[in-house]
């Protein structure tokens, strides 16, 4: 209903005008909300291309008033809203013209309605999308006019749907019936909203739609739309599961080497993740200070840097502390826990106790509209791909390189490997460095979606151990499956029971599972088990 005044004025005053209507611009700048909305209609009616720019400026918060004058201010430059002339000196006392949500919705609808007949395909497509959320009866003639000319297979159905949703409210019985059927073809949440409104009962118990036959058709269409929307929901859920799984996998992969293969209960694993995240933060700041133009590419430098720094910290740990404790799991656990506290305090002293800000590069903001009701955010897609790449690289290192061969050899039988000339201390150091470096990579990825603070690692240490133990200690494939299973299980439970219960349920599940099957999903076979 909020567009009604806009379009009544729009249709009544459909005549070309030479300049912007002074009264309308002034009402837009100085009036109350209702007056402003009427003014938007008046301006659109003039059909002046400058009106669209003016409205857009108001929507973007660039309109200001100085006494009687109305200005469009962008940065330090300003133009007069009426004449379009450049203003040489900005008056000091200016007031913002505030557009609230209601006004912005009216503006975007008005601008979109104007753009439906734009020669540019992308503009038309965006405009049709904008209006598919809900159109007003008075828009029908504009939509119909656009529909006559429109040939694009992507835009036409959208327009048909917009027209249908309008005709549903106003048209004759036959038109309504046809409109309901058209809406049945749609897969947008907007169509569902419209159909649901049709089937709703008013306060007196009467249906919004009086005709039972139309209601029946609407119910059928609603079921069709909901079936299609359900696929979108399933896709969204699956994506969320994969996304969480990829994060768990990244966090646990390093531990799969240090704990899984080497048997070191490394409580400082989470802090190695944190070191990676802080390295990313430092690289980001270096880029901002020295190469602001290449800021969007800072991650390309942050990834290797995070790996190297975390690997060095890990190797120092192994050489300095852990190698004296091989074969004494309890002492290792206590020592690495102490180290984790030292690392946390060190970071607090260096960077402060507060979270630091790691900004996403521009290309990681926003998402792809996969289906009408599913948006897949870029930052999560990038992290899933990154997890896959890290996994592949790690698998290749372990199976195709000499270091990998040595690591596997030492894992399976340390004494025999040493006998045949494998330098086991060196291999231990490098393997620990590799695991730590991968934790650093995880930190780099996590900095893109979560908060970076000294306590970052503590949130992931439990999850990491959970994944490795659940998957089966010493099994890379087990870690991958476990991460995905836990990711899915968590998201599935979350959608049923909420985040708090889901977290508890997953932990209970792991406890029960480990009780029944202590070796995890995949058990190591052979001599290594006894070693």
């Amino acid at each position: 209903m909020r567009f009604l005044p806009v379009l009544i004025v729009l249709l009544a005053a459909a005549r070309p005008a030479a300049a912007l209507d002074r009264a309308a611009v002034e009402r837009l700048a100085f009036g109350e909300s209702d007056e402003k909305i009427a003014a938007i209609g008046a301006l659109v009616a003039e059909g002046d291309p400058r009106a669209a720019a003016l409205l857009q400026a108001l929507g973007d918060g660039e309109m200001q008033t100085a006494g009687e004058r109305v200005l469009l201010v962008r940065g330090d430059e300003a133009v007069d809203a009426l004449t379009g002339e450049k203003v040489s000196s900005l008056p000091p006392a200016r007031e913002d013209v505030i557009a609230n949500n209601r006004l912005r919705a009216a503006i975007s609808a008005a601008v979109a309605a104007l753009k439906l007949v734009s020669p540019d395909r992308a503009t038309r497509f965006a405009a049709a999308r904008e209006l598919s959320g809900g159109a007003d009866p008075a828009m029908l003639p504009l939509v119909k006019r656009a529909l006559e000319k429109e040939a694009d297979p992507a835009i036409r159905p959208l327009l048909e749907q917009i027209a249908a949703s309008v005709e549903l409210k106003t048209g004759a019985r036959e038109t309504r019936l046809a409109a309901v059927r058209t809406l049945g073809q749609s897969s947008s949440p907007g169509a569902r909203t419209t159909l649901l409104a049709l089937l709703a009962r008013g306060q007196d118990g009467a249906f919004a739609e009086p005709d039972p036959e139309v209601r029946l058709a609407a119910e059928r269409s609603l079921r069709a739309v909901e079936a299609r929307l359900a696929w979108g929901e399933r896709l969204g859920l699956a994506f969320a599961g994969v996304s969480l799984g990829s994060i768990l996998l990244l966090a646990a992969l390093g531990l799969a080497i240090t704990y899984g293969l080497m048997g070191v209960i490394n409580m400082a694993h989470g802090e190695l993740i944190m070191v990676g995240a802080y390295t990313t933060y430092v690289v980001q700041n270096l880029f901002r200070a020295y190469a602001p133009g290449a800021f969007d590419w800072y991650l390309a430098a942050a990834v290797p840097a995070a790996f190297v720094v975390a690997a060095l910290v890990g190797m120092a740990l192994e050489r300095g502390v852990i190698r004296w404790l091989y074969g004494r799991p309890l002492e290792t656990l206590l020592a690495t826990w102490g180290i984790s506290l030292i690392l946390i305090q060190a970071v607090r002293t260096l960077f402060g106790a507060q979270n630091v800000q790691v900004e996403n590069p521009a290309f990681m903001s926003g998402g792809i509209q996969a289906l009408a009701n599913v948006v897949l955010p870029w930052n999560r897609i990038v992290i899933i791909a990154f997890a896959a790449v890290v996994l592949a690289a790690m698998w290749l290192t372990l199976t195709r390189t000499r270091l990998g061969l040595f690591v596997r050899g030492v894992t399976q039988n340390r004494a025999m490997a040493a006998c045949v000339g494998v330098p086991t201390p060196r291999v231990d150091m490098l393997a620990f460095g590799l695991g730590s470096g991968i934790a650093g990579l995880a930190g780099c990825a996590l900095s893109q979606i979560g908060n970076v603070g000294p306590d970052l690692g503590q949130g992931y240490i439990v999850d990491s151990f959970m994944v490795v133990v659940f998957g089966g200690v010493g099994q890379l494939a087990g870690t991958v499956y476990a991460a995905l299973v836990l990711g899915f299980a968590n998201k599935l439970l979350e959608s049923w029971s909420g985040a708090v219960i889901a977290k508890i349920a997953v932990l209970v599940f792991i406890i029960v599972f480990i009780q029944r099957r202590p070796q995890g999903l995949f058990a190591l076979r052979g001599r290594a088990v006894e070693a």
Partner: protein
Amino acid sequence: MERRALLKTLALAASAAATGLGSPTLFAQQKTVKVGVLHSLSGTMAISETVLKDVVLMAVDEINANGGVMGYKVEAVVVDPASNWPLFAEKARQLLTQEKVAVVFGCWTSVSRKSVLPVFEELNGLLFYPVQYEGEEISKNVFYTGAAPNQQAIPAVEYLMSKEGGGAQRWVLLGTDYVYPRTTNKILRAFLKSKGVAEADIMEEYTPFGHTDYQTIIAKIKKFAAEGKKTAVVSTINGDSNVPFYKELGNQGLKATDVPVVAFSVGEEELRGVDTKPLVGHLAAWNYFMSLKNPENDAWKKKWAEYTKAKKLPYAGKPLTNDPMEAAYVGVYMWKQAAEKAKSFDVDKVRVATYGQSFKAPDGFTIKMDEKNHHLHKPVFIGEVKADGQFNVVWKTPGPIKAQPWSPFIAGNEKKKDEPALMAAKQ
């Protein structure tokens, strides 16, 4: 912690000495009065609470530069309870028994306040609590300088229901899982029902502290919003979870014109690390915004900018002010005025003297401490997020309104008196 406190004290002493250089007679006898600052400087709440510590220190510096309180130099004792609720109680006890502070400025989350409350009541301490909260409490040992539900939550929901606010009819109540969001949502649920909103049109969701993955929740909100009628989200998410929440909201393209999100614990400071361009139009309800235009606010913002620069605080490059900072600052001055009126630092005398104190606050009004109920009379503002992370005020009350700590929307509250009672004894 001791060392940190010591460093802070040293720094403070040094700065006091520096300001005192011009007038050597100042604090000649070095009479000092200690005040405690109890805010999380690490952990999940540090994002919100660290600035409160700094703004209290700024007020203390300012008071000292102007001659202190009745000639006493104010000495701030800063402790870090690290977002750890039981540690709040320990630190509060330490402040009251070892440091013997005259007053404590501190706490953000209600769970931390509930944790220190028995300590303050047992030891007869005095706490100035600067954050909006759920009400349901009037302790004689606490002055609440933040908003009660009728000074924030209820007006915000009324606005979203109005034609101007979009006429929302369906509601998602989303919060962090602890006492403040749970109680606020209980009040809001009762309020919405009294306005004729059906049970099926309200969805309530909670996440743990420090939650980072908001994918499913936003998908749920989208689905709920598509079930017909205009939907609005009321967010009582607290702490650093807000950053991933708003990032996900922006990335998933949930626009304010479709589903507005109004937040009660998100201000300028929490949005610092977020790209606010996709968030334009989402709302926050507070009793102060940095973008308010009045001489007090301009002066205050300038002071804060200068202070952050002088102290080389991490936010010196982009000094922001927000509502709890204003409430914390007002709290320090209320205590100073009350102590001067009582001519004593004795808790019982200061408490009585605090009643009815007023202060010309940066929100542009002279706000008053209620004569009875320990809460401030505050104006309410509703703001929409702008592309630069500031807020456009789209609605406000004509003047300060009185707090109702006992919300009339919770059954049994009509019998409770609008003045302090011992809280800990009853719980």
